[in-house]
């Protein structure tokens, strides 16, 4: 008993010492800290295990090239299991570590932290999730969607549909198959509005949680409603199920376009391989594939360290989104440091202004022509369409955006509502 107790005492002492050591080591380094929230174990873990390494690899690449204006960046990742209390805890932890910007992850987390970020003056990014109305930088000064919101995605999907159906939607039937949660329903007002403007018939088909049972809805779309085109907005396991179901009822996948979270290699694989999904159209807010300079640089960085590049690099859809998030944070910090003339201390407020100056960063086509301004935190709402061709996601369109006037009207109306 005494031995045990003594041993336990040693352990506790060692633990305490280690905590203190870690703390003091932090205080000495002159680094810029970026908080990264991630979900590697929760409901959307298929995204997190690929996206977060992409972000880290990009930051490591920047650090290996000498950092940003001579400053190293430290990205502290905390896995919040897609749970909101953990998300709040990890935010406070990032704040404690002195984070100047935070890469948020998850719609409920973004909403729960919006007020805190604004009070603490720390900018947070929410690419591809969060509230669409947050594109309004005047109303949400510290939230940066930095990529097409669900509203922009919905508008872009309609634009793509129109192009595919010969440039006219009058009298056409468009089905909207969506995951029945707030994120799934978010594009609805835009789609409804565009249905009136373009004169097409819109019918919505909700898929209840957990989203793996949609046989009836798909059959309905294909055989009763006989849709001319289908827009899907699904998450997690459900995109792959939708591909299988469309296949089963014989609906051509070339007439299906998925919003950004139904469009990864993993979804195609889960549906039975990319060959099965031939023709499937996907919206992307970052480039897909390995054919970018930054990929080669990251591989070279790993080779130089004598390591193999990680396998997740092959899942380019989410990996490249991770790179995009990392790049936007790095650019914002670069702008902030430049504005300060390169001397050390920058605050969240400086980085916020840095975000608002981002323009013309493209990473060789991996990123859209983002232009973030104090009024537009979305940076334009650009997307690209990639289509499965010959077992691969191939670029189908250039960066485009659609119906900006309709989106503007909705953002303004939403601002008035509250």
């Amino acid at each position, binding site marked *: 008993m005494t031995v045990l107790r003594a041993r336990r005492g040693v352990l506790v002492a060692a*633990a305490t010492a*280690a*905590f203190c*050591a*870690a703390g003091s080591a932090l205080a000495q380094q002159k680094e810029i800290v970026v908080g990264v929230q*991630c979900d*590697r*174990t929760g409901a959307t873990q298929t995204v997190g*295990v690929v996206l*977060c*390494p992409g972000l*880290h*690899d990009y930051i*490591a690449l920047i650090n290996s090239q000498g950092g940003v204006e001579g400053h190293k960046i430290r990205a502290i*990742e*905390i*896995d919040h*299991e897609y*749970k*909101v*209390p*953990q998300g*709040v*805890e990890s935010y*406070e*932890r990032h*704040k*404690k570590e*002195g984070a100047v910007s935070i890469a948020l992850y998850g*719609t*409920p987390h973004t*909403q*729960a932290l*919006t*007020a*805190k970020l604004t*009070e603490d003056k720390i900018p947070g990014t929410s690419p591809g999730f969060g*509230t669409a109305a947050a594109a309004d930088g005047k109303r949400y000064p510290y939230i940066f969607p930095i990529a097409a919101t669900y509203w922009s995605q919905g508008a872009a999907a309609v634009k793509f549909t129109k192009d595919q159906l010969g440039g006219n939607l009058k009298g056409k039937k468009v089905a909207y198959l969506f995951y*029945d*949660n*707030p994120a799934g*329903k*978010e594009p*609805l*007002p835009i789609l409804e509005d565009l249905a009136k403007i373009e004169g097409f018939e819109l019918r919505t088909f909700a898929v209840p949680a957990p989203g793996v049972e949609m046989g009836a809805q798909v059959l309905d779309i294909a055989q009763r409603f006989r849709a001319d085109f289908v827009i899907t907005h699904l998450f997690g396991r459900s995109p792959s199920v939708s591909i299988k179901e469309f296949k089963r009822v014989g609906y051509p996948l070339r007439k299906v376009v998925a919003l950004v979270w139904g469009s990864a290699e993993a979804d195609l694989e889960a549906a039975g391989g990319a060959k099965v999904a031939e023709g499937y159209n996907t919206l992307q807010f970052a480039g897909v594939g390995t054919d970018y300079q930054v990929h080669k640089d990251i591989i070279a960085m790993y080779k130089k360290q004598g390591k193999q590049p990680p396998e997740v690099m092959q899942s380019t859809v989410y990996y490249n989104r991770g790179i995009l998030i990392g790049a936007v944070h790095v650019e914002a910090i670069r702008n902030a440091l430049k504005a300060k003339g390169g001397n050390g201390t920058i605050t969240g407020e400086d980085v916020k202004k840095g975000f608002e100056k981002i323009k013309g960063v493209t990473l060789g086509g991996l990123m859209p022509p983002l232009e973030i301004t104090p009024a537009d935190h979305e940076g334009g709402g650009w997307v690209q369409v990639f289509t499965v061709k010959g077992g691969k996601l191939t670029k189908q369109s250039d960066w485009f955006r659609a119906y900006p006037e309709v989106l503007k009207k909705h953002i303004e109306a939403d601002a008035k*509502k*509250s």
Partner: protein
Amino acid sequence: MFHRESGYFKTTYMADMALYPLPIARWTVGVLVAVFLVMPPLVTGLTGGIAAEYYISIVNIIMIAVVGALGLNILVGYTGQISIGHAAFMSVGAYTAANLAVKLDLPFWVTLPAGGIMAAAIGVVVGIPSLRIKGLYLAIATLAAQLIIEWIINHVPWISGGSQASIEVPRPTIFGMELRTQRELYYFLLFFAVIAIIATLNIVRSRIGRAFIAIRDQDIAAEIIGIDIFRYKLIAFAISSFYAGVTGVLYTYYLGIANYENFLITTSIDYLAMIIIGGLGSVLGSIFGAIFVTLLPIVIRLFMESFGTLLFTTAELNNIIPAVRLSAFGLLIIVFLVLEPEGLNRLWRNVRSYFRVWPFSY
């Protein structure tokens, strides 16, 4: 706490019925209250303002969880009615309060009890099946309630405030002071956590609490000795849901937003885990469970961050920590339950009774 009971003689009924009959127990509680009152300035002094915000934020989340766990323990631990719909009642409270706060501009001291009462009303309705069914069957009935309430909130814009199903609420204000920082919210949450603890302590030793325990232990016998089972089961559901509703309101004010995705079925399961680990049918157990479930992942992560770098690179650690955290969490729960199936509360009592006669063995 560690004390002996001999030598105290009660001469009045008042003394006999006191919540803490022994002077030393009163002292302990007094010291605890003092510690909690001075904690924020103390932590701030020790660690600095921003770090203190972090530590206090953990305490804040725990305090909210304590209220919810107490409520669930009244229903599951004391009355023996299994519920998997606890998080749904939280969302009822959260949305009631958020709608009242935004649409009618009411302050928190109106919306908070209103949220609780609304949840209690819904809880009574959900509790009706408990009059006919027990055990796993009741669990499934409450599971249905969880899903139905989720669906309704998600699909009725009048409740959910639009397709995002989230309502931003203003920060709570007391005497014109807006509570924003973690330290300010700390006292706000502490006040309600303490009220919840005291109320539960008193409920479970009153006639109502005894009736709950009688129903849990043997409902037929309870009915025969004159306990109106119909009434008391519904009271249990009402009280438990009231706590859940208040928890939801506290979450809403703490986060500044009501969002139904905070209150999904996984949250219900987390709360069940809290009371099972802490100890069913015990107030202290609910508190231990809430602390354990909230704190354990954080501690495991801190531990891994400090020691993991000895073995792995940071990139590897990012991948390993979440996995280790989940498996260690599961493993520790099993270890604790094997060690003491009656939960942390029983472990604590064993420690106490050991020291009560220390240095003798009995």
